[in-house]
């Protein structure tokens, strides 16, 4: 088997395991990453929402926020894990496709 095939297989296994990145923080009651709190969490931390943060944080509404489907927040870990795997597949497909395009452009133009 070619090494690149093996590496893609490895990435496939990582995709299937990726819900660990969701489940373990839940199990160990770990919160957001430092500096990545939402507006509500910020209010709990310092008592107010900084004005600029409030304005800018609504600038972009991602189609799959936090690697989940909108409205699935309360659906429980098994649903969220499924969404997480789906988002990993989609995100990696888009990323890899963009890299193939970029790579093609860079190779062709020499």
């Amino acid at each position: 088997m070619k090494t690149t095939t093996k590496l893609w297989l490895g990435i496939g296994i990582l995709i299937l395991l990726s819900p660990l990145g969701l489940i373990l923080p839940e199990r160990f009651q770990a919160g957001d990453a430092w500096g990545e709190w939402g507006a509500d969490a910020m209010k709990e931390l310092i008592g107010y929402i900084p004005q600029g943060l409030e304005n800018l944080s609504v600038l972009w509404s991602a189609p799959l926020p936090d690697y989940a489907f909108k409205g699935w927040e309360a659906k429980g870990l098994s649903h969220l894990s499924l969404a997480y795997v789906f988002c990993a597949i989609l995100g990696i497909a888009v990323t890899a496709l963009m890299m193939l395009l970029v790579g093609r452009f860079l190779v062709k133009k020499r």
Partner: protein
Amino acid sequence: MHIPDGYLGPPTSGVMYLVMLPIWAAASRITKKTLKAKQVPLLAIGAAFSFVIMMFNVPIPGGTTGHAVGAVLAAILLGPWAACIAVSVALIVQALLFGDGGITAIGANCFNMAFVEVFIGYYLYKIISGASSITSGRRVMAAGIAGYVAINVAALSAAIMFGIQPLLHRAASGESLYCPYGLGVAIPAMLSEHLLFFGWVEAIVTALVVKYLQKQDPALLKAGER
């Protein structure tokens, strides 16, 4: 380490975009000269690996979460300029599709993870590897150390961006406008969690994959060298 929208004031995020533009231009110019058609799949793999490894949030029990970036591995496999493009693309997709990292902060996040981490990691790996053979244990060590140090320098860079916000912006009421934590809070917080936890994850992941490739396909490890 994915700075969201609203944590950096427009001057900081604007400057970081301006800093990244010539870096991206140089990266495409230099990669154009060196990239061979058969390396393109590896480019996609490097970006995909970085993407997926960032989804593995590692919890600090009762505290925050964080993750490895995979940028040093990409740099070892692809060379620093191609790795800069690969990690940037992963970060841009994360921001646009999944809201992981702000769109105003794409310049800043790419600077930290696709430039600072990539280049520090790449040159540390090269320096520590020295003239050792491509399959030597020294290179596994070099990969681990490079991963550990580089992600920490990237975290420091992010912490400085967070930490200067209260100095730059303050409402008349005295309230912060953007990130409310100064350098004295941001740097110890970001560095301690990366020094104690996430740096080790980056080190182990980078070293393990290099060790695997030494056995599987040493020629691949040679390709990233120039």
